């Protein structure tokens, strides 16, 4: 069953993404025809970037994750990670605060880590 390919119209109407499995038979000559071209008006070239509906699973402090993480980038960054122990997630949130100056209040750090552990947490590694 083929799902619809994701196509993004120039007017910026986002069509819902089609999820397709990666394990297909490779085509002999893969298509190199882009679905959507750039728009050219005179000397101005432009594209309309797709933005997906990133949805985070339910969990404590999910709303804070949506706001504080989603403020700068897709929260999909969270869901593509494998499970990590708490110390790793704490380091990531700290990096967002201190290296990237994400406006995360100090009192929200543990809440965010709690959420990350709920959706992508692993036990502490044993030595």
């Amino acid at each position, binding site marked *: 069953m083929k799902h619809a390919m994701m196509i993004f119209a120039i007017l910026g109407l986002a069509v819902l993404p089609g999820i397709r499995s990666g394990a297909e038979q490779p085509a002999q000559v893969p298509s190199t025809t882009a679905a959507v071209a750039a728009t050219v008006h005179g000397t101005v070239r432009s594209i*309309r970037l797709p933005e997906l509906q990133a949805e985070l699973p339910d969990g404590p402090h999910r709303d804070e994750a949506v706001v504080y993480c989603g403020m700068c980038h897709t929260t999909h960054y969270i*869901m593509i990670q494998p499970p990590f122990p708490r110390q790793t997630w704490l380091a990531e949130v700290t990096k967002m605060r201190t290296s990237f100056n994400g406006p995360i209040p100090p009192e929200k750090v543990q809440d965010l880590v709690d959420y990350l552990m709920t959706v992508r947490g692993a036990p502490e590694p044993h030595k």
Partner: protein
Amino acid sequence: MHASRRLILPPVGRREFLKSVGVAAAGSLGLHFPRRLLGEAAESGPAAPPEFLAAPEKVELLLRTDRPPNLETPLKYFREDLTPNEAFYVRWHLAIVPTQVDEAAFRLAIAGHVESPLSLSLADLRRQFEPVSVVAVNQCSGNSRSHFQPRMPGVQWGNGAIGNARWTGVRLRDLLAKAEVRAKAVDVSFNGLDGPTLPAAANFAGTPDFVKSLSFERANDGEVMVAYEMNGKPLPMLNGFPLRLIVPGWYATYWVKSLNEITVLDKPFDGFWISKAYRVPNTPDFQESPDALAKQTVPINRMTVRSLFVRPEPGEALRAGMPTEIEGLALDGGKGIRRVEVSTDAGKTWADAKLDRDLGNYSWRRWRFAWRPAQGRYTLMARATNAAGEVQTHSQWNRSGYARNVIESLAVTVA
């Protein structure tokens, strides 16, 4: 998806909202968000299988992230020497990605420790400077990160954050000569049109802009280029239209996209993206272990020798007794590939693959290996050696998941 699952933040209002948040970031935000803006919770569970996304000017690519876009090339596009522009992978660090460029108004600025600062249009670049071309492989520093064990956070690339292209443009050395660099130049920094969602503002340091640097010696070596064409065509917007830096043999983090500012410096550049990010152990193959992290790190630099399987693809069905061709690619930091050896018995025995045509030392080198397997399960391996005798190793790791070049294993079932 259901209509009740709304966009998290409306795109039109996003910039204004984010700016107001950024400026208010000095203290606690105390924000309350209506439920309708936050969306309904999705099902929890293991990470979904890769989704495909057809971004503008691109065929369907493997979606890693969309904001900013990080899109990976499916392996099937690596069966050609040059990766089609439409299939070339996409990687941006910061969410404000250039989406509109006026070719007539665009200017490349060359300034800093120079006698004659320049402001060059695209027409100036084509008319005033000798065009040069190089076939060079562009590989993300984090390519194949998801294969490291133990794993580390970051964009979870498979092997497809890589591509080979013919780049056409002008030598950076020629640009620097026209700008008349002053004596004792130390570094050259490179900035593009992209920027962070939260840039610096009053009372707010902001997310560091993506700016890279090279030593003046490297920048001026005659190999580093400013490209205005990729495979004979203008660059796709998502690969850095109208100009990008080409640093042959070095990892792609230096290949700054949408390049519009070149600044010559009389002291070392210490921007975040070179002094804190993209650091690797100061050891051969950039190797360390989780229990013994390297004490010293350096900015990632020249690519290490590696090979990748292109066919069969993981999960591809092979028929017993049918001749098949194992295909792959090999690359290094510019010395050239001497040989690629393939094993079909998990490394017990090795035989030479046939190398495809040589497109120059900075290009990848494709290879093929004839095989006619009987029914069974096999572990294929590929091992590249470059012209300097450097060869891939069986074990390699570093804390950030950069520069993966370990000998690949590919499990194959022949039915």
